[in-house]
């Protein structure tokens, strides 16, 4: 465990000197918190009707009976953008992993590291956690800022409770870390093939595409993201993570790194 800690500290000391990494870890969470807060601010009193029956069906789905039409619309709009919080656990680890793995490749620092008594698993765990922990922390902090802002801006506690329903708590606190793990493993696999951190980052960024498809699908009313869907999504991600961890441990072997990573 000490060696894993050493690797994590080393990774952070190195990658956080990179402005690109700092930007993605510090600025993105603020942006992701600011968007739904701006929507809350902009959508105050934007719908005058109090009649539930006059609202579109997908808006109705999110609306507890006791809320007014205007409140429902606000809850609906914010719910649409809650998926943005899922971009953070995908984007941040890919940036950190891309720089940490490819950085080691280009500066040829992996061989001295592999010559130490560290196990491959410890090294991989150190590198993965160094990318995972900031991503999870940034997601939680971002969600925390949003929650605080929403609590201050929304006078009606029932509206606030509707926004913070179990779906999004499961998404942020369970699906988020699972998505981060997908991002780290894919990033490590891509990094083993390319030599430019930006190329690795851009390729890993493609992971956001399915998330955007879900976002626009829900926005267009094709489906509704409910608690069951999120739980099934979490189970699916768990399976994907298990497969990806297996594949990345196969790629992240001493001999493979030394003889095939170019």
């Amino acid at each position, binding site marked *: 465990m000490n060696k894993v800690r050493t690797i994590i500290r080393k990774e952070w000391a190195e990658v956080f000197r990179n402005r690109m990494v700092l930007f993605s870890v510090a600025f993105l969470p603020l942006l992701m918190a600011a968007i739904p807060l701006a929507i809350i601010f902009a959508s105050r009193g934007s719908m005058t009707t109090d009649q539930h029956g006059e609202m579109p069906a997908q808006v109705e789905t999110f609306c507890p009976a006791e809320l007014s039409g205007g409140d429902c619309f606000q809850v609906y709009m914010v719910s649409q953008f809650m998926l943005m919080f899922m971009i953070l656990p995908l984007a941040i680890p890919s940036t950190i992993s891309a720089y940490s793995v490819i950085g080691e490749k280009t500066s040829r620092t992996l061989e001295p590291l592999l010559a130490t008594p560290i196990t491959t698993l410890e090294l991989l765990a150190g590198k993965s956690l160094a990318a995972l922990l900031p991503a999870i922390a940034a997601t939680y902090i971002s969600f925390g800022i949003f929650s605080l802002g929403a609590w201050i801006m929304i006078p009606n506690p029932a509206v606030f409770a509707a926004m913070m329903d179990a779906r999004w708590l499961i998404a942020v606190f369970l699906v988020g870390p699972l998505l981060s793990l997908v991002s780290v493993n894919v990033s490590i696999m891509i990094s083993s093939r390319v030599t430019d951190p930006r190329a690795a980052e851009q390729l890993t960024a493609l992971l956001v595409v399915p998330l955007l498809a879900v976002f626009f699908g829900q926005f267009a009313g094709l489906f509704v993201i409910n608690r069951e869907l999120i739980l099934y999504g979490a189970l699916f991600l768990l399976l994907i993570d298990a497969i990806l961890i297996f594949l990345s441990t196969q790629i992240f072997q001493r001999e493979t790194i030394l*003889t095939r990573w170019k």
Partner: protein
Amino acid sequence: MIQTENLTKRFGSTLAVKGLNLSIEQGEVFGFLGPNGAGKTTTVRMLASLISPTQGRAVVNGFEVGRQDDQIRRSVGVLTETPGLYDNLSAEYNLRIFAELYEVRDPAGQVEKYLRMLGLWERRFEPTATFSKGMKQKLAIARALLHEPKVLFLDEPTAALDPESARLVRDFISELRREGRTIFLCTHNLDEADRLCDRIAVFKTRLLVVDTPERLRQQMFGRKVVFHLRNLDEAMLSKVSELPFVSEARMVDGRLLVTLDDPEKRNPEIVRQLVMEGAEIQFVGELRYSLEEVYLRLVRNDGAPAT
């Protein structure tokens, strides 16, 4: 300290190392020479337990490669072909990371010891990106020594260094030798190998030859003595050639070049003979072939001693 038996490594259909048999004693500086792509780095990687052999066996510091890799990594130090330092981090932090990974008992103390020993203490907090090549190489050597390994693998330790830095590194290697460490030195610098190594191996996928530099010279070229005479002529050459212990005598650029087995014993007889023939001898000296000439002949002839 290092034993290999039929050590072999294949990468797919490519044979990188073929049936290497070596035995290196404790405290020996062993030079491992060969052209680029000969399999030197692959051999070092196998012996340092970084990659596993396809066939054969290797024991390093009493531990078997492939079975006791962790113990091997704890007991050997590796200087890779490139320093491989974290350029954004300070010299001190670079060493600190490795001291922790090697589980050194007093990381701060060991880091200080080697930074001072290699003259880098004053610049310990500077990022290594600001260091010269020589300083980086010294830091990489320090990193390989932090855990006080008994066996050191040095891959091209003076490559790309200016003469002054190269000399510093060579002096340091000599110091390590005095401490009784076993050093496996891969180098293209044949003069360096000649000066530092007790024995050298010439390697090109397989082991071509292994011996002391001096004995290799003798095997390749025999021992040759040059006589500088003011008045060398054919009669003198003929008289020397007839001596029973002389293998060969030739005139080269107005000098007499004699090949023989035991110059220390036989030179006085040759001198006597020449003086009797009326020769005026200016100088007598042994013709010493460089290790480079020995090496080139071996590599070109694929290990055959002479053409």
